[in-house]
């Protein structure tokens, strides 16, 4: 591990070169203003290598994968599987442990529905380990994106399991101290986020995995926000399952990935069934292919998978320790920017340690939508709303926040533009800075 070494932050020249790789970043918005894109937490922009890889596939190699004896089919299959290997290696796991899904939501639902199928008796003796009994518990956290909450609510409702959750402290950090009481011998699944898409807080995964192992629960990690921004080694983290999406890590939409530990994927029953995921099919029944194909029914999103592979390669070549160091600087800049404007409150940690460059905030007296509109008029793109995390917003007593989220291509100068626009928000709505203090 090189984590203790001093990792060089991207120099100005290197950052300019990175930005030149992203054609969209040079466009203007709202009457000619340079775009300041601070919505990478929702979806990242895409470098040329990703766009080109998809084009190249359709122009040169387009064919169905895993079938057909012709040369194009061979080349398409090779590119598709090379992309899988690229993405798997990027997160420290084996190629056969990485399932393509249409997005991260589909990956989490895949696990939840597979457990449901095991509960219904599907998957034979090997799958019995996953079956839930009434009274079993599924534990999530109050910080989850709806994608890592609602599928577990549904699974609980289908199986008679009980849903419980770990709370969030006033800084937006998960209440790790509650693990001992909330996770019990009846807990079968512990689903939690690696990094919150609202607070930016990065989870210390180790105590979660340790507690889950103590009670024999499966762990499901939502790694959507961590994989694009931090070095992530899923095998080293020791989680059982993890989900992340292509489009947040500089790749295309329409593709995501599910990681599952080999022995678990081997025992897990399929969810989507049909072509490409079977071995022998008769009129009465079918046997299923080994993972990962068992979970990839139907024609796959080949070009997008290849694009996601190109994105992983692009990030790996930049070096994720360098990316994380650059983004740590952006985190400090964003927190300083927001702190410098009166009447702005951060929802999330004020400390830049163990935190992404994702900063959600409220402006006293101005609704998040209106904040976003004023920023947009200055060319600054932020997300407004509940960011698919209503319970977390409720926890902080707000219906909506504005969120600025950076990526590898974001500059400190852009955060200055954001700061200036933010400083003008209350004035625009006629709120007097002195009188309302």
């Amino acid at each position, binding site marked *: 591990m090189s984590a203790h070494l001093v990792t060089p932050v991207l120099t100005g020249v290197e950052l300019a070169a990175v930005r030149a790789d992203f054609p969209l970043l040079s466009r203007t918005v709202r009457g000619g203003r340079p775009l300041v894109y601070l919505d990478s937490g929702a979806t990242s922009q895409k470098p040329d290598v990703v766009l080109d890889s998809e084009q190249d596939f359709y122009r040169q190699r387009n064919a169905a994968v895993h079938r057909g004896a012709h040369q194009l089919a061979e080349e398409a299959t090779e590119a598709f599987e090379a992309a899988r290997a690229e993405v798997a290696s990027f997160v420290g796991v084996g190629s056969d442990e990485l399932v393509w899904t249409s997005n991260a939501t589909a990956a989490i639902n895949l696990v939840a529905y597979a457990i449901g199928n095991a509960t219904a008796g599907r998957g034979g003796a090997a799958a019995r380990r996953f079956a839930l009994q009434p009274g079993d518990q599924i534990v999530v956290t109050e910080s989850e994106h709806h994608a890592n909450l609602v599928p577990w609510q549904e699974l609980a409702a289908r199986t008679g399991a009980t849903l419980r959750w770990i709370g969030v402290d006033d800084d937006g950090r998960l209440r790790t101290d509650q693990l001992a009481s909330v996770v019990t011998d009846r807990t079968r699944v512990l689903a939690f986020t690696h990094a919150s898409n609202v607070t930016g807080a990065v989870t210390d995964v180790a105590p979660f995995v340790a507690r889950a192992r103590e009670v024999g629960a499966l762990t499901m990690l939502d790694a959507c926000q961590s994989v694009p921004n931090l070095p992530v080694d899923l095998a080293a983290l020791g989680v059982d399952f993890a989900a992340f999406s292509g489009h947040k890590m500089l790749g295309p939409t329409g593709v995501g990935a599910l990681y599952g530990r080999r022995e678990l994927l081997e025992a897990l029953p399929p969810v989507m069934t049909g072509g490409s995921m079977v071995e022998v099919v008769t009129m009465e029944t079918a046997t299923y292919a080994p993972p990962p194909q068992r979970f990839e029914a139907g024609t796959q999103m080949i070009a997008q998978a290849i694009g996601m592979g190109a994105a992983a390669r692009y990030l790996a070549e930049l070096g994720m320790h360098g990316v994380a160091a650059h983004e740590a600087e952006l985190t400090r800049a964003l927190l300083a920017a927001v702190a410098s404007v009166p009447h702005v409150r951060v929802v999330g940690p004020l400390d830049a340690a163990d935190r992404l460059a994702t900063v959600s905030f409220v402006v006293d007296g101005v609704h*998040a939508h209106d904040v976003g509109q004023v920023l947009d008029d200055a060319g600054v793109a932020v997300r407004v709303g509940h960011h698919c995390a209503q319970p977390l917003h409720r926890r902080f007593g707000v219906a909506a926040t504005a969120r600025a989220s950076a990526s590898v291509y974001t500059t400190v100068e852009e955060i200055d533009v954001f700061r200036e626009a933010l400083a003008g928000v209350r004035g625009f709505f006629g709120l007097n800075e002195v009188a309302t203090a």
Partner: protein
Amino acid sequence: MTNAMEQLYQQVILDHAKFPHGRGLTTDAVAPGHAIGESHQVNPTCGDEVTLRVDIDPADGVPVLRTVSWEGQGCSISQASISVLTDLVTGAELTEVDRLAETFRQLMHARGAGLDPDQEDALGDATAFTGVAKYPARIKCALLGWAALRDAVARSGAGLPATTSQELP
């Protein structure tokens, strides 16, 4: 500041957002024969919400909307829109309420071009929302209160035949 932005946040909108009319659900006794309807609407993308109540006087077959009261929270566009509609429809016959709601819906789909002068006259202050139609993400904000109004009228049971009601935004 872009022109579009100035058109979006006209002073009349900012004023209504700051001092909204009709806010606070009424607890007045219901007059004999009056119909009460209440609707709760949410904008799922931002969590904005409104609960709106109407008091309808049957008035010998020409039902009139006597009072509108509401409670809600949301952005300046949604709050101002509910405030303006309160002024516009209070005391209006239900046929007129329905016509206004439909006209406002058309304004929101006019991409900022506005409507015929006659229609705009009828909308009064609500024409200030013309610029909202240039920002597709904000149209739902402006329509939130109107959706609640139509639903509340329908729920009161005093409404017009279902054929006149438009789909909620």
